[in-house]
Each structure stands twice: as C-alpha cells, then as structure tokens.
C-alpha cells in the first residue's frame, strides 16, 4: 500500500492488518523510552490547511517515535497566505525530499489530488466532510481492545453525520468489520442520500440507546444553528444529547466514544464524559499507536520493528 486515502482502499483485511501492527506499537508506547529506529532517515511532512491540534500532534508524535524526521508546514504563516496554489506548495515541499505527506484540508478530495501530483506517500488526515481514515482505525482499535471484535456489535453514530468525515470513515470501517451501524440524527444533519450506505437510520435516540453496544457521539458545531439546520443547540441536546438521564438507558457494558474535541453539555453531558465506560482519552492514546502502524506500513515495510 502506498497511500492511505480512504478506509474503502483498505477493506476488512487491510484494517485488520493495521490493527494487528498497532498492537506492537501500543507495546512500544508503554516503554520507558517509547521510541524505535524503524523510520530513521525517512521524512514525514504534516501539511495542515485546517487547524487541528490533536490530530497533528498525534501524527507528529507517531512519526517521532518511529525516529522519522518531521517537518511541519504551517499554512497560517506560509506562502499559502501569499496566494501560492495547492499544487505549487506541494511540489515545493516534495522538492525538499520527503517520504510522506500527512494532509488535512477543508476541501474533500485534496489527498487524492496530492497523490496524483507527488511521488511521496499521502496520508489523509481529514478532507472536508469526506473521510478521516486514521480516526476510524483508532476507533476500531479502541473498540476491539474492549470487546475483542467488532463482528456483530451494534453501534450508534449520533449527531452531525452530514458534515462529518469521522462518520463517513467510521461507517466504512465498522461495517467492514461486521458491526451493525445505526445513524441517529435530525434529518437536516443526515447526508441528502444514503444510497449504498449499509446503515439504518433513527431519529429516536431514546429507543436506540438500550439496544447498542457502542454509542459514538459526533461534535456538534455552533454554526449549524445559523445555517437553519437546527433551531438551537439547546433543542439538539434535548433530543440528541447524551444526557445523564439518557446514559442510564444504556446497557451496563456499553461504550461511549467521541472523536473530540467535545462540547460538554451539548452532545455529551460533562458527567457522562467522565464515566468509566467513556473511552475518549483511550481513543487519543491509541491514536498514536495506530498512526505509528500506518506510517510503518506505508514507509517501513521490510524494516525492523525494534
């Protein structure tokens, strides 16, 4: 595999392979000096056109733990502000001699365009509303850690599906591994068409909660109110927020997940986020190991796992 653009490129086998390799990097992360020489001499660039502290830090940490050199292209202070085109920027970066580009962009499809333009490996760290494959991989890893397998699990993904790259990648990954996915959202926050999506849809959060093994909450953004997608965040919380009352509807061993950053009090009540069943910080911790696995599989095949 050269690039990681979409979960669809991996398929069930590819996902399983990433998860298997992630196991060894979780072990590495637990060492006193969590670092291996696997990617020494390789250069990884993080090219983030959209602010993202956690994903960027996670990728850069993963690359450093593999001993890769990390370049950080900061769009806010760069030539991009002077009007340089995406293609020119990317070709300039590639001319410096790099092995992988980790790209985040607010426009869907940009990682595909990059993969066309450069020889380096391209890793999609989030493209518009489209995909965020490493988030889905770390979500699968986290669920598997607790439940052993996703096969046959019932997972509800709740919230702003329409604008969510996490939801698109998670639907592909969860269903590829055999989970049954239900999308829970007001109709305005669902994609206009779900043709070809192997999911069920519900607008009744209370009815769904007792039946699921995992409830996956998406971040609700303030601006959805001004776009006439919602009357108010308050009304959203009333119908679709995981309030303390609703959390009691969950089975005892049900898991609560969120890609972060959370809006406490909107999609998730503060006290629910801190329950033992909430895996939110676990997701972040696993994120580094899973991204190490991805970088290793793309750049280090044949290398020493250390």
């Amino acid at each position, binding site marked *: 595999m050269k690039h990681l653009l979409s979960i669809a490129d991996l398929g069930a086998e590819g996902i399983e392979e990433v998860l298997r390799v992630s196991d060894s990097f979780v072990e590495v992360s637990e060492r006193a000096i969590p670092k291996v020489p696997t990617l020494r001499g390789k250069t990884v660039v993080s090219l983030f056109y959209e602010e993202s502290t956690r994903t960027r830090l996670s990728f850069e940490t993963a690359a450093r733990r593999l001993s890769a050199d990390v370049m950080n292209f900061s769009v806010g202070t760069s030539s991009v502000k002077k009007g340089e*085109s*995406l*293609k020119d920027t990317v070709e300039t970066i590639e001319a410096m001699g790099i092995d992988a580009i980790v790209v985040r*962009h607010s*426009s*869907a*499809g*940009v990682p*595909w*365009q990059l993969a066309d333009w450069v020889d380096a490996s391209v890793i999609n760290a989030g*493209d*518009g*509303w*489209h*995909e965020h494959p490493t988030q889905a991989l770390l979500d699968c890893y986290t669920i598997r850690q607790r439940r052993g397998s996703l096969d046959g699990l019932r997972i509800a993904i709740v919230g702003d599906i329409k604008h969510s*790259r996490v939801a*698109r990648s998670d639907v592909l990954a969860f269903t590829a591994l055999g989970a049954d996915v239900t999308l829970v959202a007001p109709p305005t926050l669902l*994609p*206009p*068409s*779900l*043709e*070809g*999506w192997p999911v069920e849809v519900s607008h009744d959060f209370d009815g769904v909660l007792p039946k699921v093994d995992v409830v996956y909450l998406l971040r609700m953004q303030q601006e959805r109110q001004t776009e006439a997608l919602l009357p108010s965040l308050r009304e959203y919380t009333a119908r679709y927020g995981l309030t303390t009352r609703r959390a009691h509807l969950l089975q005892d061993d049900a898991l609560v997940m969120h890609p972060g950053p959370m809006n406490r009090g909107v999609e998730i009540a503060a006290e629910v986020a801190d329950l033992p069943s909430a895996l939110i910080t676990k997701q972040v911790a696993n994120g580094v190991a899973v991204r190490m696995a991805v970088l290793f599989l793309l750049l280090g095949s044949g290398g020493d796992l250390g």
Partner: protein
Amino acid sequence: MAEGELVIRGGEVVDATGRRRADVLVRDGVVVEVGQGLDARRVLDADGCVVAPGLVDLHTHLREPGREEAETVETGARAAALGGYTAVVAMPNTEPAIDSAGVVRQVLEAGARSCCDVRVAGAITVDRAGTRLAPMAEMAELGVRIFTDDGRGVQDARLMRRALEYASALGVVLAQHCEDEALAAGGHMHEGEWSSRLGIPGIPSEAEELMVMRDIALARLTGARVHFQHLSTAGSVAMVGAAKAQGLPITAEATPHHFTLTAAEVASYDPVFKVNPPLRTPADVAAVREGLAAGVFDAIATDHAPHAQEAKEAPFDEAPPGMLGLETALSLALTELDLPIEQVLALCSWQPARVAGLNGQHGGPVTEGFPANLCVIDTAATWVVEPERLASRSRNTPYGGRKLTGRVRHTLLRGEPVVADGVAQR
C-alpha cells in the same frame, strides 16, 4: 474558372430541406450552384463526407475581455471553426460584463478578424448583478439578439418579468441559466448519492427546476420568448416539453456533457468534471437524450467554458465550474446520440440559428445564393481527444483519451476555407 472560386466535391449535402449527393460551387462567399460534376480551380475533397450548413453555438464563453489567459476571441473562434461552427454566441460573463454597447462593440470588433462569426449575448441586468436592467435596446441596435446573465439566473421574479416585457418589443430572446441561488448555495456538484458519499456539498435538481417552473409561468404571463440554457434534469425536460406542447414561446438547449457524463465522474475529485449545472444522474442523462430525440430541445449548445490550468488545479470546491466543448460537441453528438445525422445537424445548426436570429446567414439551406457558411464532416473518421492538441487556449476537456467517431474536415466562413483538412487556416 474564376479566382476565389472553389468546389466542395463528392459529398452528400444535408440541410433542413433533406439530403442529396451533390457538389457545391462557391464563389464570392456565396453558394452559386449545387449539382453534379461541378469544377473549380480549388477543390475541397468531400468524398464520404456530409456537407452541411455551418454549426451555430448558442452558448460559448470566449473569456474576452478579462480572462484572456483562459481564452481569447481569436483562440475560441479557431476552436469553434475546428469544431464545425461558423457562428458562436459569446456569453456576457466577462470582466467587465457585456452589459453595454461599448463592451458589445469591443467583442464584435475582436470577432470581426476571427475565423468564425462571433455574435454577442448581452447581459439582462447591469453587471449581471440581478438588480437593474441593462440597456438592452442600445445593445439590440448593435445586433444583439440574445440576452442572459449566464453563470447566474435572474433571481428576482419581478425583475425577470419586467425584463421579459421590455425585451418583447425589441425582437430579442432572453436566455436563462436556471438556478435558484438560495437552494443551490454552497453546492459544487449534483446533490445525491455521489455528493453524499464524497462529502461534497450538493446542488439539488430542484434548484434548476424551480426557476424553469417560474420562467414557464413568466413566459405565460408576459407572452415573451424564453430560452432555457443547458437544462440538466429529467424534471426540467418534462416541464419544458409540457410547456412547449401548450404552445408557449419557449426554446431550450442541452449540452454534450449533460448527455454523456454523470456525477459518478466526480469520484476522481478532478475539477475538470466540475460544471454548472452539475453532472447529474444516469436517469437525467437518459431524459436529456430523450428530450433531444423528441424535440423538447431546439439546440445542442456547448457551454464551452475555458479555464486556465492553474485554476483547475485547485481543490474541487475552490475550482471554477466549466469545461471545454467547441471541438468535441459535434463528434460527441454523432458518437453518443442514436439520432439520424439530419436531426443532429438540426440541433447543431439550423435550429440554433433560428433561436439566435441568424437564419438567413447561418444554418443553411445549402442552395444557390445562400452565404457559404458550411462545414464538411467526415462521419466515419475516428479520433481520440488529446487535450494538449486542442486549439483552445485551455485544456479543461473532460473527454481526454475518449475515442469519438465523426470529425470536421473543412469549415467555410463566407466561402473561405477557415479549416481545411482538419487544420485551421488562420
């Protein structure tokens, strides 16, 4: 045999009056004889070819003034001639917009030296801003016969009503780019299965259909002519078909890309497939094809929309919409539409000539005394579209690598072979 005389020999003449094997003798820019065994000092070989009236494009973006890096009147006209066109109507969404006699004159003057008759569409509203009527009478006096804010539809129903009423005294037609901007806002491709999957904001079919519906109502209210540009949805085709059946003064055009490509192409995220109205569903493509066969459409128009390479090397949602069309339209119609050649030529030549008020000069018939605006089509020739070999200044064709059947061999503008053996002569 006089100087300035030529014969198109060995072809089959096809025009609105029918088809016949005949040579065509041209002198001083006019067809002087159509018959057997004609001779002249210069002979253009038409063996195995169709000799037809030159094509007329109701919808061309020549980008001049303002975007000369993408196309000029000269390069666009050359592309048109190579595509078999002897007349094109240049859209007014230039910078500045063609919304006054001054800019009309500028484009007409640039066109006077080119290898295709360049006509101009004027804007309906000042700067195409949709708030005040542009001086249509002043532009009509310079020969402008089509007015449009193309690239945008006139959003305000009251203003559109007034424009139609005002225009009805000028003998001109208003052409609408049908798009309700509120409903389409933020969209970059057809809204549906593919936009949902690809995470690209969509434009629903209804954004087009609402304005088609409204303008059919306004045509009924005002009695004025309305021309619908680049219709792309099954709903639009059905409504226009029904309105024409009621006898309303309506005409409509369809583009080659809307009868050959679907939204599935966008899965490549290549902005070459970004266009407005967007590529739609297979059912919409089928409806446009049926509309062409059934006479709902009066014309195939190219919506030739050149963009510089760097503009199309942007993220999909940042790239401008539009694709090239002049050099591929006829071949696509011949290759993809299961229609007799008379019907394809009706849609590409004499019917659009009537819509644009160019009949008498363009669109035939190929008879004695008619201006020799002609094209000669080798209907059996096959060729592969190579973007870098197109005459347009831009390269944004979505058909790169596609094999097509039927190609223009010669194009004559007022008797002068501006294209001979597939090569532009100036």
